[in-house]
């Protein structure tokens, strides 16, 4: 029961992006389209969950003075694995994500969860916490990716939605601003606004 709560808490109340404000760096740049956003969300979830699990197993034998280096080594090994996996199976998306796969290493969510949770908790809750935070990050990524791709280029996962429902015939135009980088920031700002005002 407690583990289930650890998974669902980061969806809304403890969301890593809108509440803890971690991991913004890579989140905004990959959301101009839905497909890279999905791939990025899955990659980060895998890395956070496994890193949490491994560090939590090793937590009693890591000397506190050098823990950052140990964490970085574990995380970067996992990221190299993810990077090679993406290059082998979804090469085009891996090219699109370019440096942002490598930047998962310095993603604040990963380091933040390792420091705040995995160093002091047993393996199973740590694994759940990692999955939860990865998914909480993923939700925002997918929401941003959907809005930006739908209104920016009129497609979803490459499927021409706006053309099929005939929006162009009645004078609809794609909003080019949506795929520009600054719009991602403004959208996150609006999501935070929405979330906080809903709570009152």
């Amino acid at each position, binding site marked *: 029961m407690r583990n289930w709560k650890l998974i669902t808490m980061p969806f809304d109340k403890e969301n890593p992006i809108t509440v803890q404000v971690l991991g913004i*760096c*890579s*989140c*905004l740049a990959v959301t101009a389209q839905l497909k890279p956003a999905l791939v990025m969300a899955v990659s980060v979830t895998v890395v956070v969950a496994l890193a949490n699990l491994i560090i939590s197993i090793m937590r009693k034998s890591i000397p506190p003075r050098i823990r950052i280096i140990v964490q970085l080594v574990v995380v970067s090994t996992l990221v190299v694995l993810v990077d090679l996996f993406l290059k082998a199976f979804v090469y085009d998306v891996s090219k699109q994500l370019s440096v942002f796969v*490598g930047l998962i*290493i310095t993603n604040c969510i990963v380091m933040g969860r390792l420091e705040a949770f995995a160093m002091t908790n047993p393996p199973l809750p740590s694994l759940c916490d990692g999955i939860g935070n990865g998914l909480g990050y993923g939700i925002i990524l997918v929401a941003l990716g959907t809005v930006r791709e739908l209104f920016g280029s009129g497609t979803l996962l490459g499927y021409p939605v706006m053309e099929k429902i005939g929006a162009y015939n009645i004078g609809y135009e794609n909003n080019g601003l949506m795929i520009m*980088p600054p719009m*991602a*920031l403004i959208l996150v700002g609006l999501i935070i606004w929405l979330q906080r005002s809903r709570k009152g």
Partner: protein
Amino acid sequence: MQEIVNIFVKSIFIDNMIFAFFLGMCSYLAVSKTVKTSAGLGIAVTFVLLVTVPINWLLNKYVLSPGALAWISPSLANVDLSFLSLIMFIAVIAAIVQIVEMTIERFSPTLYYALGIFLPLIAVNCAVMGGSLFMQERGYSSIGEVLAFALGSGIGWFLAIVAIAAIREKLRYSHIPPALQGVGITFIITGLMGLAFMSFMGIKI
């Protein structure tokens, strides 16, 4: 020479770390409450970029990229170590940050205390890692270009964080809807600043 100046200007204004690639957003949002501390962090990041990117460039050129080991012996010409680059880059960055920290502590304790916790945190700043990864991705050919890129990116980051800190100091006296205060409004303002910076696009010297 012209190419170097071009890269320098481009990495400050057009390929700005924050407004075009959102790198280093975490510390950008957390530390930009006052102009003074954010200027200190900006200088530290610029310095670390200026040291780590050229070192990683040398490492990439002579050890990691495909066929780079040929200078040791021709038999190593088809060794490709590029899969190690992520681990090597982060190790170099973590080590350099540690050295920089100890040097500053030894020679200028005042600066050390002014920077405080931010110094060790630079090791996990995406802007620094991003600098190294972009350097590898774009394949700069000479050390001059790499230095111009590192210095330009650092100055771009510095300008962005000082600008947002100045705006946030003024914002304290404005009436913002309660739910939008703090992080929310900072995001939106950063977006608007990004739009303004986009007007530099296409500048070439």
